[in-house]
């Protein structure tokens, strides 16, 4: 039982994650098409709904090319690191309050560990190697530059991300994500209490997921494909999958840390039947995550890419001081208002 129940949860969670990724790619293409006044994918299936599954299938039957100049083992290892990290951090994020199925209490989380949020940060810092090593192993100038840039970018924004989280931890008094969500009942969302931390965290999340305007590692016009220039077939798909999975996890994190998780003012106080409450909570959580995913896509197709010096200046000279400011603000809030 110690093993079987978690395995069942993992299977469900991974299936959901893969399903969302597949359709996230579809919606990204559709939304970008709408933003640019195009139609977008519409040939495969009704409204092009089968486009993404078709693309996945296609990638399965493509030739896997490893350049002869590359370091073969590391070349294969890099996507494994990226994807393993991206596909395991969901485990500590709860999707809703406890529910009851067949009289048994089920927690909507795979692993409720006491270091919760720190585990995500620690594992995200391991994810950097996926990009660095893929750039180095390919032995391609574009890849190496892309890999280097992305590692420097990710470690720079990891700092402000870490410091922004500290503000949340002060108010929650715990690393457990359940406690963090429960500290935000009613209107006590961290996004309202510490708006600066919220903004720095969201910006850092964009940088950590290498999304536009922070997609310098890829920067097609100058670096071709960046760190995954020399990857084809499913190895390329693994990086792609990791990027989108990271985006989903980042959205879940922003929701849990700053947007009150599954709490919504008025709903908490409303007298709903016990059976209905968890369902609505999960729906609220999903709605928030979906909105953030839309926001990710919306930003990507609206804002141009930074120049690399602008990116580093933003990270070290703006984000770092701002997140420290947020930390002091929260500490003083606790001292003066005892919230």
């Amino acid at each position, binding site marked *: 039982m110690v093993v079987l129940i978690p395995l069942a949860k993992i299977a469900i969670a991974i299936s959901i994650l893969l399903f969302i990724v597949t359709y996230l790619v579809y919606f990204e293409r559709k939304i970008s098409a709408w933003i640019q006044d195009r139609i977008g994918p519409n040939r495969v299936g009704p409204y092009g709904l089968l486009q993404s599954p078709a693309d996945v299938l296609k990638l399965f039957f493509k030739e896997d090319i490893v350049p002869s100049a590359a*370091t073969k*083992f*590391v070349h294969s*290892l890099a996507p494994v690191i990226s994807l393993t990290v991206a596909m395991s951090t969901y485990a500590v994020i709860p999707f809703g309050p406890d529910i009851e199925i067949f009289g048994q209490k089920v927690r909507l989380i795979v692993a409720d*560990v*006491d*270091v919760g949020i*720190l*585990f995500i*940060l*620690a*594992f995200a*810092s*391991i994810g*950097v*190697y996926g990009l*660095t*090593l893929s750039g*180095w192993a390919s032995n391609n100038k574009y890849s*190496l530059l892309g890999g*280097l840039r992305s*590692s420097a970018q990710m*470690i720079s924004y990891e700092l402000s991300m870490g410091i922004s989280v500290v503000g949340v931890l002060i108010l929650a008094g715990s*690393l457990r994500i359940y406690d963090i969500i429960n500290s935000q009942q009613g209107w006590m969302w961290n996004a309202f209490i510490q708006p600066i931390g919220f903004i720095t965290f969201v910006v850092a999340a964009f940088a950590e997921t290498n999304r536009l305007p922070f997609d310098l590692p890829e920067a097609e016009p100058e670096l071709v494909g960046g760190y995954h220039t020399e990857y084809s077939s499913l190895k390329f798909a693994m990086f792609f999958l990791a990027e989108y999975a990271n985006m989903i996890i980042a959205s879940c994190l922003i929701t849990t840390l700053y947007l009150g998780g599954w709490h919504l003012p008025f709903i908490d106080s409303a007298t709903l039947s016990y059976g209905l409450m968890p369902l609505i909570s999960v729906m609220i959580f999903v709605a928030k995550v979906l909105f953030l995913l839309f926001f990710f896509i919306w930003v990507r197709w609206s804002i141009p890419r930074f120049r690399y010096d602008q990116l580093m200046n933003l990270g070290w000279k703006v984000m770092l001081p701002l997140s420290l400011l947020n930390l002091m603000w929260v500490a003083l809030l606790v001292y003066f208002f005892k919230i």
Partner: protein
Amino acid sequence: MNIEIVAFAILATIGIASAILLVLQKNPVYSALLLILHFMALAGLYLLLNAQFIAVLQILVYAGAIMVLFVFVIMLLNLQNEQALVDNFNIRKIVSFILGVVLFLQFAVFFLVKAKNDIDIKKSPDSIDAGSIQNIGEALFTTYLIPFEIASFLLLVAIIGSIFLAKRKIE
């Protein structure tokens, strides 16, 4: 069989194997990767000792931050296979071998003879969450306040040192 002993055996094997392979590797990038694996195994061992906060810091700081610098340095120096640096049998090798054996014997004597009698390795009942962030925080900011503040000076020195080392190249 206890699950923790099994976990300990697996982690210890990974740790020792990766450490040995690390030294034997000719390519420094593989060595760095093995060191990351070794740090992961160490994190697992900390977890078994109920030091969950330290375990996660082991990954965050050592495997996540310090190894990035290692990998950068290895890439920066652009060392290919280390054939050039493998020198022949010489006096340095003999000395380091002897010192290694002495160190090993020292540890062996300590753990087999002394530690058995002198140090009480039994845990007190409240040690189950001794490694939790709450306990560490409370100790760090009350009992060990001075070392904590001195740590910030050390970090300041490290900042200045790193800039001083790299300075002539920045300009």
